[in-house]
């Protein structure tokens, strides 16, 4: 993006940019997360949204409990196979473009639950963009993950149409 403020234009100024870069700039600064919390990581996720860590500083404070108005899925907590089909359906209902954060050891690889009921990593059925380890991860780690998603949107973006 280039900023121009030439006196010849009466001091009004204008921006030059590419439409794709402009759209991605908007996307990365207005991520709307869909919180998919199933266990203790969800408590830590609430801390990320709340005032002390305040995810709204990164433009991502509007947690939408409807997938149709969200573009970032924050999966936090143990996912069982019974829940996995629900999780996948909610992901499918989110409009493109969309991103996924796997928060915590359980979502990344099943955590301590090497059992018949628990999915050993949500990348078995979801395309994960950023993994956060920890049990649970610190809120700073979640903020770092959101910033990595922002970086990814900035560098790779997504098609406009």
């Amino acid at each position, binding site marked *: 993006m280039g900023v121009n403020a030439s006196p010849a234009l009466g001091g009004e100024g204008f921006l030059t940019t590419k439409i794709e870069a402009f759209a991605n700039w908007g996307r990365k600064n207005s991520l709307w997360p869909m919180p998919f919390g199933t266990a203790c990581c969800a408590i830590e996720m609430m801390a990320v949204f709340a005032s002390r860590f305040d995810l709204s500083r990164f433009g991502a404070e509007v947690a939408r409990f409807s997938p149709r108005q969200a573009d970032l899925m924050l999966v936090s907590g143990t996912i069982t*196979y*019974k829940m996995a089909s629900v999780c996948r359906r909610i992901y499918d209902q989110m409009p493109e473009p969309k991103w996924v954060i796997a928060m915590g050891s359980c979502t990344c690889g099943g955590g301590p639950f090497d059992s018949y009921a628990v999915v*050993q990593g949500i990348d078995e059925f979801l395309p994960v963009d950023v993994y956060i380890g920890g049990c649970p991860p610190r809120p700073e780690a979640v903020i770092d993950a959101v910033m990595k998603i922002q970086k990814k949107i900035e560098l790779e973006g997504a098609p406009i149409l």
Partner: protein
Amino acid sequence: MSLDIDSLISALNEEFPGSVTEKLKWRGETTLVVDKDRIRAICARLRESHGFAFLADLTAVDYLTVRSPRYEVVYHVHRFGEEYDENVRIRLKAGVEDADSPEIDSVVPVWSGADWLEREVYDMFGIVFSGHPDLRRILMPEDYEPFPLRKDFDVRDREASKRSFQRALEEGDD
């Protein structure tokens, strides 16, 4: 007045001969091993005549080859009272033989709170509670085939879960 467990046992054995086969005591806990075929009658008598109004828990154990009969269904029943020693909790155990579908009478007619507890035991061990009003799986998906808490089931075997997951995905609306 605290419960006289021996007179309770003799009252039960008088009404249902040979129904209480064993009394076990361990660290102040009392366990009665009872006849599986008369479990509902024993529970009804405990509730109606001896004040055991509350079924605190109902679960099962799979002993596989360790013990015969293979399964044991365990009932924790509680009697409330105003004084400390009037509150009594005893444990009932009923052995269930191994079979294609091991079976025992449901105690839902006695304590309606047994409904979901028996469904969980059915879900995990495959023990059929005859007379249960709605014996479906409660935790695992409804089309799941194995009984995961049986000792001959590999606890890391995720294949059946994956099949249920795939079916749920393909069927869409549930």
